[in-house]
C-alpha cells in the first residue's frame, strides 16, 4: 500500500478535469423497479421523486414483466444462483444451450454463443475471427464497444462515412487485395436512431466478396415486422454473417449478449474469444428469464406494435409542439438543441416537471449537435407521452425555442 498524497493528487486532478469539461456523470439512484414510471433519488440524498422514464432502453417494457420475473424465480429455484465457472470448464447448463438455440432461430442465423454482455461479444468477436491478412471496414459512427473490439484485433481497419454506400463501395474496392473483408455497422445508431441500409450494404458485400457484421442491440426485439431486427426490416434475414446483440435492452434488460451467425465464425468465437473464455457464464436466473423473453416476443408482436405506435405518436406530437427532431423510424427520438448548455439545462428542467430525460453533447455526439435523446417504450401509455410532450412544450417555451429551426436555435444560443 503506497497511496501517497502525491499519487492521490494525480487522480483527484483528473476528476477535476472531467468536471471542468462538463463531462462528470452524477449519481442517480432508481428506488423502484425499472419501468415507465420510476422513483428516483437525484441528486444523491434528495427526497425520492416519482418521474416518467423516457431514457431507458426498456423498449418492450419487459424489464419488470410479471412472466419474466416468474421465470427468473423458477430458474433460480431449479438451476441455482451462480455457476462459479466460465462456460467451457463447468459453466454450461442445458438452459444456456436452449437460449442459444432460441436466439439463433429468432435472429435467423446458423449458430449462437452467449457472452456476459454485448460489450464482451464485440470485444471478442474480431480477434477470434480475423487476422492480419484481413481488413475491417467500419461505419464511422459505430458503437464504442465495436471500436474497442476492432482495436484489439490484428486485422487492418478502415472507415467509411456514416451510412454512405458510395464511400463503402470505394473502400471495398480499395481493399480487394486482402484475404477477407468484414463490413461492420450498428443496425440502429443509438444517438440518432437511424437505420443502416442493410439491403444495399449486403448487395455490395455480395459484389465485392465481403462479410458483414451488424450490432443490433438497439433493434433486436422490435425493429422489423416481427421484431427480428434491422435485417428483417430491410428483407435480408439470413444474409448477415455475424449479428451481435444484447439481452440488456429490449430483450428483458438485465444483461448478457451474444454473437450469432455463420456456424464456423461462431465456433471460432467458442474456441478463441477471450471475453467468452475468461469471464463467467451468464447466470442461471438471467438465462431462464431470457428464455421466457424470447418466448414472449416470438408469441406475438403486440408489444413491438405498441412501441411503434408510441414512437409515431410521440414524433407527431413533438413536431406539432414546435420542437426540432431528427426524423426516423425508431423509438429513439433526438430532440435537437445543438447547444450543449441548452441541452443540459432543458433536461434538468424536464426532470423538475417529472420527466426523466438526459442531455447529450460532445464528445458523446459531434460538436454542435447537442440534443435530448428521448426513448419510447411499449410500457408508456398515451397519457405518459402527452405529459412528456406537454413538459417539452412548457420548457421549450421558457427557453424561447418553439418553432425555431436549426439556424434559429443556433442564432439564439450559439454552438
Amino acid at each position, binding site marked *: 500500500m503506497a497511496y501517497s498524497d502525491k499519487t492521490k493528487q494525480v487522480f483527484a486532478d483528473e476528476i477535476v478535469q472531467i468536471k471542468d469539461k462538463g463531462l462528470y456523470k452524477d449519481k442517480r439512484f432508481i428506488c423502484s423497479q425499472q419501468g415507465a414510471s420510476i422513483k428516483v433519488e437525484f441528486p444523491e440524498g434528495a427526497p425520492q421523486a416519482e418521474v416518467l422514464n423516457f431514457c431507458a432502453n426498456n423498449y418492450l417494457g419487459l424489464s419488470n414483466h410479471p412472466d419474466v420475473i416468474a421465470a427468473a424465480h423458477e430458474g433460480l429455484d431449479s438451476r441455482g444462483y451462480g455457476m462459479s465457472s466460465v462456460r467451457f470448464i463447468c459453466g454450461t447448463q442445458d438452459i444456456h444451450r436452449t437460449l442459444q438455440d432460441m436466439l439463433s432461430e429468432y435472429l435467423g442465423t446458423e449458430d449462437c454463443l452467449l457472452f456476459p454482455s454485448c460489450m464482451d461479444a464485440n470485444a471478442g468477436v474480431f480477434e477470434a475471427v480475423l487476422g492480419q491478412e484481413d481488413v475491417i471496414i*467500419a461505419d464511422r459512427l459505430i458503437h464504442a464497444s465495436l471500436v474497442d473490439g476492432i482495436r484489439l484485433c490484428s486485422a487492418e481497419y478502415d472507415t467509411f*462515412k456514416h451510412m454512405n454506400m458510395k464511400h463503402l463501395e470505394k473502400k471495398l474496392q480499395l481493399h480487394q487485395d486482402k484475404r477477407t473483408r468484414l463490413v461492420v455497422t450498428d443496425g440502429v445508431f443509438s444517438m440518432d436512431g437511424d437505420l443502416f441500409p442493410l439491403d444495399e450494404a449486403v448487395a455490395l458485400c455480395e459484389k465485392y466478396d465481403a462479410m458483414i457484421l451488424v450490432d443490433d442491440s438497439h433493434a433486436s426485439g422490435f425493429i422489423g415486422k416481427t421484431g427480428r431486427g434491422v435485417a428483417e426490416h430491410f428483407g435480408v434475414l439470413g444474409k448477415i454473417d455475424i449479428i451481435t446483440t444484447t439481452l440488456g435492452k429490449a430483450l428483458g434488460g438485465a444483461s448478457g449478449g451474444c454473437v450469432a451467425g455463420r456456424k464456423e465464425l461462431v465456433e471460432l468465437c467458442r474456441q478463441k474469444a477471450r471475453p467468452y473464455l475468461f469471464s463467467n457464464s451468464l447466470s442461471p436466473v438471467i438465462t431462464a428469464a431470457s428464455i421466457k423473453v424470447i418466448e414472449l416476443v416470438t408469441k406475438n408482436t403486440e408489444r413491438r406494435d405498441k412501441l411503434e405506435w408510441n414512437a409515431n405518436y410521440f414524433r407527431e406530437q413533438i413536431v406539432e409542439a414546435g420542437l426540432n427532431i431528427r426524423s426516423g423510424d425508431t423509438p429513439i427520438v433526438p430532440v435537437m438543441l445543438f447547444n450543449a448548455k441548452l441541452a443540459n439545462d432543458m433536461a434538468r428542467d424536464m426532470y423538475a416537471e417529472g420527466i426523466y430525460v438526459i442531455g447529450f453533447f460532445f464528445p458523446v455526439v459531434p460538436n454542435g449537435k447537442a440534443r435530448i435523446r428521448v426513448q419510447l417504450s411499449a410500457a408508456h401509455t398515451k397519457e405518459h407521452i402527452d405529459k412528456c410532450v406537454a413538459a417539452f412544450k412548457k420548457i421549450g417555451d421558457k427557453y424561447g425555442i418553439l418553432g425555431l429551426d436549426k439556424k434559429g436555435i443556433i442564432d439564439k444560443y450559439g454552438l
Partner: protein
Amino acid sequence: MANEMHETILEYVIEEYAEEDDEVTFDTALISSGLVDSFSMVSLKVFLEKKYDIKLPDDEATPEAFDTVNSIVELVLKFKK
C-alpha cells in the same frame, strides 16, 4: 514535391472527412477540432501508406502528428525515402 503532396493530402482530407460547410486549409486543426475523430483517423493512415508506399509506425502516427495537413506532410517526408 512537398507542395504537390500538400495538395494531394488536402484534397483527400476534404473528400474523406469534410462536410459541405467545412473550410479546410493546410493549417486547419483536424483532430483537435473534432473534424476527424481518432477512430476515423486510421483511414488517413491507410491512404498515406498506400499512396506513398511507406509504413507509419503507430507511435509516430499520433493525433498530434495528424493534426494538420502541414504536420502530416512532415511526417510522410520523414518516412519517404
